[in-house]
């Protein structure tokens, strides 16, 4: 487990999502990265049920339940800006039992699927973010495996990302900022994915040209 940076790759002009992904992966393959199967990160949204809300004026908090194929036995439950719970994979079954408190917003299910590449100590995952039937964007996750302190390897990560993302290289993720020198954990990656998904959801009004 290392330090991970999750970012969004904008769709190249005049290209579809699929084509942009292909361009990226070709670049990676040219670099010498090895293809290692696929990956999948999914996120389901839960509303706190109306019956449990005492105060009518208070907006219901959203809870996200996420899975990551990199952590196949785990299930992540997050609140926005809130705590992150890591549990066994059968946490989903528990959520079914808690129907009275948390209601699943099925339409809001969003996931990112793609190919996993390994390049020496780096793991790169380029995925297509889909919500329902439509592809909405591209996620790029880069992990530097040997290090667990985010600030120690951010520059290295950035330099590596520049090599294949060019000027779309993201800035330092917000989770790195409040970590200081402490150890990076898988929950931080999931927070980054959650933020990415939220960002992409908000973009949904803006139609992306040539998406399909």
């Amino acid at each position: 487990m290392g330090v991970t940076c999750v970012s969004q790759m904008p769709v190249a002009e005049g290209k579809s999502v699929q084509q942009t992904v292909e361009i990226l992966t070709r670049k990676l393959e040219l670099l010498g990265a090895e293809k290692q199967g696929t990956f999948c990160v999914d996120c389901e949204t839960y509303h706190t049920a109306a019956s449990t809300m005492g105060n009518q004026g208070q907006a219901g908090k959203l809870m996200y339940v996420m899975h990551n194929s990199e952590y196949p036995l785990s299930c992540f439950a997050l609140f926005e800006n809130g705590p992150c719970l890591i549990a066994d994979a059968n946490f989903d079954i528990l959520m079914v039992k808690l129907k009275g408190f948390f209601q699943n917003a099925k339409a809001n299910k969003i996931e990112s699927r793609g190919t996993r590449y390994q390049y020496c100590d780096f793991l790169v995952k380029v995925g297509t973010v889909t919500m329902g039937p439509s592809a909405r964007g591209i996620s790029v996750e880069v992990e530097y495996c040997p290090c667990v302190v985010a600030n120690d390897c951010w520059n290295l990560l950035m330099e590596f990302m520049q090599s294949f993302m060019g000027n779309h290289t993201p800035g330092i993720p917000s989770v790195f900022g409040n970590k200081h020198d402490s150890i990076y954990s898988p929950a931080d990656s999931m927070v980054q994915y959650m933020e990415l998904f939220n960002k992409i959801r908000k973009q949904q009004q803006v139609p992306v040209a040539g998406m399909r």
Partner: protein
Amino acid sequence: MSGVSAVRISIESACEKQVQEVGLDGSETYLQPLSMSQNLARLAQRIDFSQGSGSEEDEPGPGGRDWTSPGDAEDEEGLVKFQPSLWPWDSVRNSLRSALTETCVLYDVLGILKDKKFMTLDPVVQDPPPPKQNPQFLQLISKKKSLAGAAQILLKGAERLSKSVAENQENKRQRDFNSELLRLRQHWKLRKVGDKILGDLSYRSAGSLFPHHGTFEVIKNTDIDLDKKIPEDYCPLDVQIPSDLEGSAYIKVSIQKQAPDIGDLGTVNLFKRPLPKSKPGAPHWQTKLEAAQNVLLCKEIFAQLSREAVQIKSQIPHIVVKNQIISQPFPGLQLSISLCHSSNDKKSQKSASDRQSPEDHLYVLEHNLHQLIREFHKQTLSSTVMPHPASAPFGHKRMKLAGPQAFDKNDINSLQSNEGLLEKIIKQAKHIFLRRRTAQTIDSLASCIEDPQIQAHWSNINDVYESSVKVLITSQGYEQICKSIQLQLNIGVEQIRVVHRDGRVITLSHQEQELQDFLLSQMSQHQVHAVQQLAKVMGWHVLSFSNHVGLGPVESIGNASAITVASPNGDYAISVRNGPESGSKVLVELPRSQCKDLPKSDVLQDGKWNHLRGPFKEVQWNKMEGRNFVYKMELLMAALTPCY
């Protein structure tokens, strides 16, 4: 009740004066003490003269009767009794009187008897015995009868005794069986099925998955002949083990260089090991059961290995024939693992055993196999350990943490390492073989090359897959100045990694030739390094130094190395070229002035040109004195250094 005999306690009045009365004010009025005569009278009154010595009582004469009757009359009278006591000596007088009377009577009787005229004393005549008709016969009958009676009594007693002895022994044996059973129970699992007691030999409770039932039966061995002498090792409890677990077994692991004949496959010779001597004090069933359990474990190991051998795909397939598994860890080398099981009754195996030399055993691997199977047991046991949280997944204990601690794929893979027994043991065998061969290579080099010397320091503590040795190359007598070559050889499973003193890492394969060539080239470099060190000590100047010379004849192993040093005043120079194959070549450069055979040049007329260096001349190195290269070099340098 209590065994303590009654204790006599004599009580005497403490104060001499008896208290008559105690006044209300506490004052005591004492009785006047008796005078001497009064006291005597009082004591005499207490004596009962009628109850005197027995002789008087035994023969109550007619006179005596007379004397006692008044006493009786007195008792009956009661009130009169007190009358004579008014006179204190009355009873004494009476007694004396009666005594006198009796003495007189006795005297008279004796006097009459003495004369024998009127009275004689005769013994009392008893009735004569009835007349005997056949005294002898009757005596015999009575004797016989009484003897028979006595005999009968004796017989009865003897019978009772023998019965009780037998009962005792029976009881004891029963008790022995029970106590033995109790001891058995402490070491082995037992259960009762019907009227049988069955025990469990298998390692199932320790996590084994071997399907053999491994049960033994406990037999009560009490009905032995009482007449015969009980053998010393008699035990009332015996165990019956399944016939396929009898005898002794072991796993044999060996590495052979040559490929086997196909005909020899699967006929691994057995040599019988003597059954382990039972520990003193341990019952014989213990050794029997332990042996059987060992057989079971060996069978399990072999079954596991052969299953893996069939399943695992390797470049050279593993061969499983009968009781032997053959694998080829390195080309031209075969590892054979065989199950040797000898039951006691087969004599035919004995002959084969003599030819077999036990030297090619790899005891370490055999031991490790046992260890591995036990680890394997433990693994299966710990995976289903109870109690188990209802929500947690089954599996390894650490697997339960995998979810909540978000283990990634690599972590989970490392938890699920399912490298089989065979793969592990082959890896270990490879390592052992590689280590052995490295040691051989180093030793053979050290023994056949005297100059320079090789020292190998093996580390005592190794991993099963890795060990290390430190190799020093030195020259005898110059150990302190020639320390340039220190190699650390890390011997792994497939290859040897050599770490130089300066941190360079070279990876060698398992081929022994590679290591040998490497060491040879290092040795040749050592000589040149030694010259460099020596030059420093001797005050010579190093003009050039090269580990890998690009000139001259090409060496088949490595490269030649060379050094040129100049004497302190610069007159002479020594050039050394040393190759692993070509050996050393030493040249000395002389000043021009000392060369006589140099043709006189017309150009260089001036004397100053004589200080120019002249040509190199080769030193006949094998004719130099000195025990080794560095010593010879030291002598050469010393000879070329002028003394002022």
